Structures are given as C-alpha cells and as structure tokens.
C-alpha cells in the first residue's frame, strides 16, 4: 500500500491534536504537541524515501553507485527535531512556572488571569 506512511503521519497528527484538546494536564498537553510534531518527521521521511535507496552519505559508498534517499527532507527533519526539543523545553519551563504560581496544571482550572 503506497499511501500507508502518509496515513500514519496524518493519524499521528490527529492523535496529537485530540490529546492536546482533551488534555487535563499541561505536561500531557506538551507531550501531545510533541506527538503532533513527530507526525511531520514521518511525513517528511516518507516523502523522501526511495525503494532500495541508502543513506545520502558518501563516506563508504562510491558516488553514483547506488540510489539514495532524498537528503533535503532529512535535513529538514534534523533541524525540526532539535528545534522541537528546545521548544518543548521552553513550554515545560512555562508549565513549571504555572504550577508554582497557580498550584495546578489542569488547563480547565486556569481560567482567570492573575498577576
């Protein structure tokens, strides 16, 4: 089935969205966002895959001797992973402060603004 990886990416994205929307805990919400983001990795790598292809690195293969998978999407995924990790860290830092100031991490209980 030639569209299964794309469907997996879509399923991951929606699962993350449902997780975020129904979350009762901000840490869980940040985790769900990470699931959403991982769907982009699956999509990008699926787009770049080539049957029988190998890694686009010429450290041990002669250039042109074998088909290669797409390096562009791999580079995009790579930066995505690193940036995603640090953004997750920033969000978790916000959760730490929310928990300290409001004494809860349930988004439904965080209705009012407080200085």
């Amino acid at each position, binding site marked *: 089935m030639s569209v299964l990886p794309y*469907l997996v990416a879509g399923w991951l994205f929606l699962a993350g969205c449902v997780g975020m*929307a129904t979350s009762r805990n901000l840490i869980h919400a940040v985790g769900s966002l990470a699931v959403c983001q991982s769907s982009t990795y699956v999509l990008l790598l699926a*787009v*770049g895959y080539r049957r029988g292809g190998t890694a*686009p690195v010429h450290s041990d293969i002669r250039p042109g001797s074998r088909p290669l998978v797409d*390096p562009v999407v791999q580079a995009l995924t790579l930066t995505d992973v690193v*940036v995603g990790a640090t953004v997750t*860290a920033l969000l978790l*830092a916000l959760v730490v402060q929310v928990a300290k100031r409001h004494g809860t991490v349930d988004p439904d209980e965080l209705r009012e603004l407080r200085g």
Partner: protein
Amino acid sequence: MSPRTRLWVLACGVAGVAALLAVTVWRLPPFGGARHPYGERAVEAALASRVANAVASVNFDQRAFDTLGEQAILFGSVLGTVVVLRQTRDERRVEPEPAGVAGPVRRYALIALPVVLLTGVYVVAHGQLSPGGGFQGGVVAATGLHLLYVAVDYRALKRVRSVHLFTLADAAGEAGYLLLGTGGLLAGTAYLTDVLPLGTFGTLASGGTVPLLNAAIGVEVAAAVVVLLARFLDQAIEIVTSGEEGDRAPGTDGAPGTGGARPAGGTGRADGADGPHRTGRGGAG
C-alpha cells in the same frame, strides 16, 4: 463552552481534517518512488562542493540561511527558558547535599563520561563526512557532561559546569554562525555562500565553510542543552519557595538559610547501602 460542546467541535474538526487528509494522500507522489528531483540535485550539489554527507551540505551550504533561522529559534527558546526559570523574589536557593551512588553506577558512568564527550566532538568534527553534525554531536556532548551528575552528584556537576561560561559559549556559537556568513559578503557574493577552498573530497578539511558552520552549531547546541538542563536541575534541586507555601520543601519553612534540612525528594531508596541518600532525584514534585 461546556466540555460536551467542546468535544463535539473537536470531533467535527478532527473528522474534517481526517477526511481531507485521506483524500489528499492519494494525490501525493507514491511512497518509495524513484522520482526525487530535489534530492538528486541536492546530492549533485553536495558532490560538487566536495561534501560527502549530503545532509550536511543541504543544512550548511544549500540551505544555510534556513539553518540560520532554525538556530535562531533554538537560541530564542533557550533565552526564553532562562528567563522563565529564573529565581524569583519569593524563592531562595538551598545547597545541594552530597549524595552516595551505587558503586557500579559510579564506575560505569565515569568510564562512559570521556567516551561520550569524545564521541560528541567526533560527531561534530566529522559532520560533513559521515552521518552526524553539529546538531547531533552537540546534544551527545552535552548529555555526556551530565553523566557526572549520574556518577557523582549535583555539586560535582556544578563545579565543572559554569552556567555563565556555557551561556557565553551559546552566544559565541550563534555569533560564529552569523559572522561566518559574512565571509560571503566580503568575497563579493551572497551571505553564507561557501567561499573557502573546497579541499579534497572525504577529508576532514573538505567542504569549505561547511565544517566551520558545523562546529559553530555544535558549540551552540551543546551549550544550549547544558544551559537548559542547568535551569531545570536548578528548579528541581536548588530553588525552593520560601514563606508559607513551602510545598516544594515541607519542613523547611521559615528560617531562610537552613539549607541542610531539605528532605530527600520522593525517591524512597532507604536501603542505606551507600551512604547518605541522594538529593533531589526526581524530587520536588
């Protein structure tokens, strides 16, 4: 909006997006197909600039300006985390206590520490030759440093890890990337153009500016991860709220400065086989 209505809105949205995705995927190029026009051109360009790792060439040569934006996001997130997790007026620091570690853990972590650090540097340095690069190697090296926390304790980590220095290194990595880009301007071409001699294919100095940009990113990522983890570890171990809401450290309310009275988190390892209890592990929840 009541929770029930909200679920219905969510269900409609999810069903709509799912239907659109299900229709769209059939029009995408088939999975595993042989036609990758961008990939083929990127590999050609990588070989032309004598970079063996095509991914590194895409990141640091063909799309170097894009990577500049990505690493600016990284820098911004770290800056934001440092600001958000600072010590506020109603908080104070307690000195972390010395902690005992099981013998095998200490031995293996201390053996692994230099190996992991070296691996990190290796992965950064060979970024244009073999799989890896500044992003990956930086994370490996920064993680390796924290084996010291696993092997000894937080005080040992604090002694060798000056957060101030790593903050400077983070900024230096960012500045290094920006300044290396101006080399193109000085040579009369576009910003971040690879203007240095390309060297011999497959050697450590090949690829012109690619290894240099890789190194700048490696320094930035390693320093960024160290600073991030330092802020989180500070929150978990050192910083406690003073005053009446002492829920982070029950029993130490009042009397600021009595740091020794900090309870030992919630780890509950009371076998006493290895000296005093480890402080702050997974604690302060």
